[in-house]
């Protein structure tokens, strides 16, 4: 009780800090220097219609590489953690059978979901969306598969290969930027093309594709890893 009261008081104080942040916040009326640079230069320099994508993949590409690595790490650690548990796998307990609805629905929906995912990451430089979103969409398809067929053998090695290769290529493209263009992760290794076209914005679509594959693979691995813990419960 005392602990909760203390927590409340502390959070009240933190809330005070937040309040003063809130009160002190005045929305910008003009874009600040950085944003203005992006607004002015993205089209010409990067050739990406989606400015956010340009920032994510190119200007702040290192962040994104980190981001991908975060997911990679999470997946790897998840694998580590759960792998240690899996060794003492116990007798499988009988699961309630999966319903007809789910099985059929998944058969219909999964290809569509996959397709949507691919669309989202390939068009990342043109429309809202991108590799992460696309990857997540793909993973949701995998989730559906998992739900529909919990006992189905899962192609771990394939997914792992996809994940690894995507990651390696991403790094290689980044290095190509360092060698061939203006710097690490510079997307202008390939020609910029026409603003708004599918094949434009240099390597951005490729990177987003790789990210999409990688994120999708990673999420899938995570999901399957977590799903396998069910057997313990």
């Amino acid at each position, binding site marked *: 009780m005392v602990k909760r009261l203390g927590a409340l008081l502390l959070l009240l104080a933190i809330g005070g800090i937040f309040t003063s942040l809130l009160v002190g916040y005045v929305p910008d009326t003009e874009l600040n220097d950085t944003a203005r640079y992006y607004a002015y230069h993205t089209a010409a320099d990067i050739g990406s219609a989606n400015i956010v994508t340009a920032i994510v993949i190119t200007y702040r590409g290192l962040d994104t590489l980190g981001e991908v690595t975060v997911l990679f790490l999470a997946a790897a650690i998840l694998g580590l953690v759960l792998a240690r548990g899996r060794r003492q796998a116990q007798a499988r307990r009988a699961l309630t059978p999966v319903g007809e609805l789910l099985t059929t629905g998944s058969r219909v929906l999964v290809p569509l979901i996959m397709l949507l995912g691919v669309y989202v990451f390939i068009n990342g430089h043109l429309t809202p969306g991108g590799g992460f979103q696309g990857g997540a969409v793909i993973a949701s398809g995998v989730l559906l598969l998992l739900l529909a067929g919990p006992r189905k053998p899962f192609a771990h090695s394939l997914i792992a290969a996809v994940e690894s290769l995507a*990651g390696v290529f991403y790094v290689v493209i980044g290095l190509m930027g360092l060698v061939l263009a203006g710097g*690490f992760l510079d997307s202008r290794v390939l020609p910029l093309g026409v603003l708004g076209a599918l094949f434009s914005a240099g390597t951005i679509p490729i990177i987003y594709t790789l990210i999409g594959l990688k994120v999708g693979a990673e999420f899938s691995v995570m999901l399957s890893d977590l799903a396998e813990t069910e057997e313990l419960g």
Partner: protein
Amino acid sequence: MLSPLYLVAAALAASFTLGLLNPKRSGAAYAITLVTLAFMAWVPAGWLWGFMAEGAQPVEIYTAGALPPYAINLRMGLAEAAMTLLITLTGLLSALYLKESLIKLGHRGMAVLMVALMAFCGIVLTRDLFNLFVFFELAAISTAGLILLSEDERALSAGFKYLIVSQLVSTFLLIGILFAYHASGTLNLDTMASARLPHGSAPSFALAFFLMFIALVTELKPFPANGWALDIYESAHPAYSALFSAAAATASLYAVDKLLLVGGPGWYPMATGIGITTFLAANLFALPQGNDRRLLGYSSLAQIGLILVVLGQRDLLGEGTPFIAFGLLVSHAVAKAGLYWLSGLVGGRSLTDWAALRGRPLLVFAFISFVAMLTSLPPFPGFYAKWELVRVLAGEGRLALLALILIGALVEAGYLFRWFGYMLKREAPAEAVNGEPHQVVPVYVAVLAGWVLGYFWGELSGVGLGHHNLLLSLPLAFALGFLLLDWLPAWVKNTLAITGMVAFFFLTYAEYDPLRLIFALIFLIGGAITLLASYDAHGRRIGFYPAAMLMYAGMVMLVRANDSFEFFAAWELLTLGSYFLILRGKHSEPHALSYILFSLGGAFLILAGFALAAGGAAQFPITALGQVAPAVAPWVFLLLATGFMTKTAAIGLHIWLPGAHAEAETDVSPMVSGILLKAGLFGLFVLLMAMGKQRLYGVELTHVLLWVAAFTALLGNLMAVFQEDAKRLLAYSSIGQMGYALFGLALMNHLGWLMALMFVINHYIYKSMLFLSVGGVAKRTGTREMYRMGGLIRLMPLSFIAVLIGIIAISGVPPLSGFGGRWIFYNAILASDYRLPMVILFLAGPVAFLYLFRLIHSIFLGQLKDELRRVKEAPFWIALPQMLYVGLLLAFALAPGLALRRVDTYLNLFFPEGGLHWEGFEITSDYGYWNPVAIMIVVAVIFVSLFAWLLFVNRRAQKVKQFNIVFSAERPFRPETTHFAWNFFAPYRKALGFLVQPYATTFWGALTDFLHTAGDLARRLYDGNGQSYALHFLAFVVIVFGVGV
């Protein structure tokens, strides 16, 4: 020089590639990992070489083909190169160390390790705020993964607690970053710094900055938001803890530093405050720790706190900041990594389990190197850093902070050296150290790195501050050389040592002024004579010679020191060396600890005193002590004098001495008593020579010294009276004798100083002699309790003669040299302005008889015991120096002028009045006269005639045995009940025992108990609950906000 981006790319590419390998081929994956890590280390190594050797300039590395602040950029400068090298090397070695675990875990674990290192490097390299956040998150997540490497099940909960806190932290960090971006329009650190809005004028930026700052600082594990870190330290795999302590901390520190540059000086006080609080609290909490890894964890927190203080003092330290911060950082990182690696070799988790290391001298050496690094002892980088830090802090008058730092450092030294003592002295556990080569190699690399860095810092300090590189000074090099020769038999090393010392004396003979010559003579030639006794030792005597030579080297360097830096360095060296020597005694563990603590405490006072005196100047010649500004001069005097008096064991600060001197080995006791104590006196000589009389609040400090000295003499003697242990008795006697010498110095007149010098020489001779003699007896009889001995005169005549001559000399009875001291003393006090302290000293004089008589009676006279009937004379090599000392004593008694005359003249420089006149054999003062030769002859003639007469009359005397005594017509039963020796001065205790109540011991004991208990109670704060830790963090934020903003 490869772009550091390759470092990032290599790590990522390798991690990703590992997934392609067949999971069963862990060996190959491990090889790839090692190669990658080596590559990652090679990149910054190339840069570092470029910066250091080729004078390259720092480079900005752009990404994405756009310029900052619009794209992320990295920077590679000297600091970054050094830090990334540190991180990657630690990582490489840890990976080596982790071989089995990594192979067992497979490629995922290796990938996580590489990403972690990449993330640490990224934190160091990046100049973009949000990028920093990303790297931090990478580091956090990989940390959570690596914690799982541990075999310890508890690591799991530790990792989860860490995740809880890091969630909170990242929330604050993100909000802070975004609001900072909003306020400044940029994410680039440099741009943000240059566009910095003045503190206070943009509250939202300040607030945002606060959030970022507090979040990053939390990565430094500040008190109290650090419970999670401790749990990790305790439960994680030691190799990971090494990484966590060395690499992660390095990265976080640099991040905070970068942030502080953005925030500007307005935030420095907050950093300082957090740092010092952490430093003190962590050290305090470490005190009651019994678990080695947790202790190291606390120590890590403390060290990082200290470095944070340094960063917070950037406004003062200016250009010197990197030198200091890096000095402390590398010392911490190397030592902590090494210690964690070592902890993996030790089976048990209790501090005492480290005794297992004892069988491996190299590992012991590693351990002590690490401890010395952590406690900032010379010649390691921390020492130079500490010196600089204190110098600047004192120069700018931040004395409270300085005091807090020194107190914390002392506490830290306390638990580290206690641990070292455990390792050397506690019973070794059954299971020995299981050192696989790949686990031992990292430790050795760390040791080597420590020493190399020590050399390097010495060079740096030579370039920047004009100090000598300590490792290049001949005495120290000579001493350290014995480390390499430790495999030789003891007698060879002993010969080498003696030759070296004598040779060094003759080489440098001409460089000393008369006063220093006396000290150099005692330290070098005297030391060589004492070392003769060491021929008695057999075998290799591992560790003895490096320690002894370190002590002697320190003393020689002390005499030769010109500026305060050299002086202080020498002081620490001799302290360290003597500590090792003392620790060698069989039961000396607690005493050695109290010795090193008092010594370090004293050293810190000296350090502060010198720093205060220098007023910020980089170079401060000892002689300049005389020109210290009058406002600070008395304080300087007070600090230095107290520091030196710790070494001379002035009353109140004396409690370390008896145990330390008594428990030391036979040939060590004379070194630490007869010779080492003189270092303190030398310091006082130097101090008084330069500063003279000082007044503080109208009180003349030399007058205070006079009282202290008088009470030291009295109480030292009184306590000696009540000892049952012969060596303790001698040790207390040393306290009393040092009181006399101090008294002479504090008289501040010509003869007083001469008397002090006389005591220096005399005390060296007779205390060395007595300690050797008593040591020899103790060796033969197997006990130091005097009442267990008795009647040994017939069996150990040489030892008896030494003691006899010694006690006559100490008691000041003519015709031996002690009388000269007393005579000069009387003349000196007649010339002095003070009268009352003499009363105490007069009382002290005769008290000396009591213990001296007890010494000789209880050991050599009286009744011989059954079991001692067959003991032999002390070994030749122990008896030989005693006889040399007897000769020296007689020579000095006959011709004190040999040693004193030149000094007497020299002292005219300081006190033109009141010198002595030396005419032939006669010595005349303003008051009286004294002719040592005449006295000797008269006494000898009377004595010899009477003796001859008595012998003649009793030529037919029947020689009887020990029970042929009149016993009220009965007979004695057993020698034990007939030897009157135990509690010999019972009536005296009844009368004056109240004076020797152990007030000082009680006081210091209560103080340490208090600290211990306080630490023990306060550490309950860390209740192990993740939610509590989260609350601690929140509380930390609120408190810092309340106090700081």
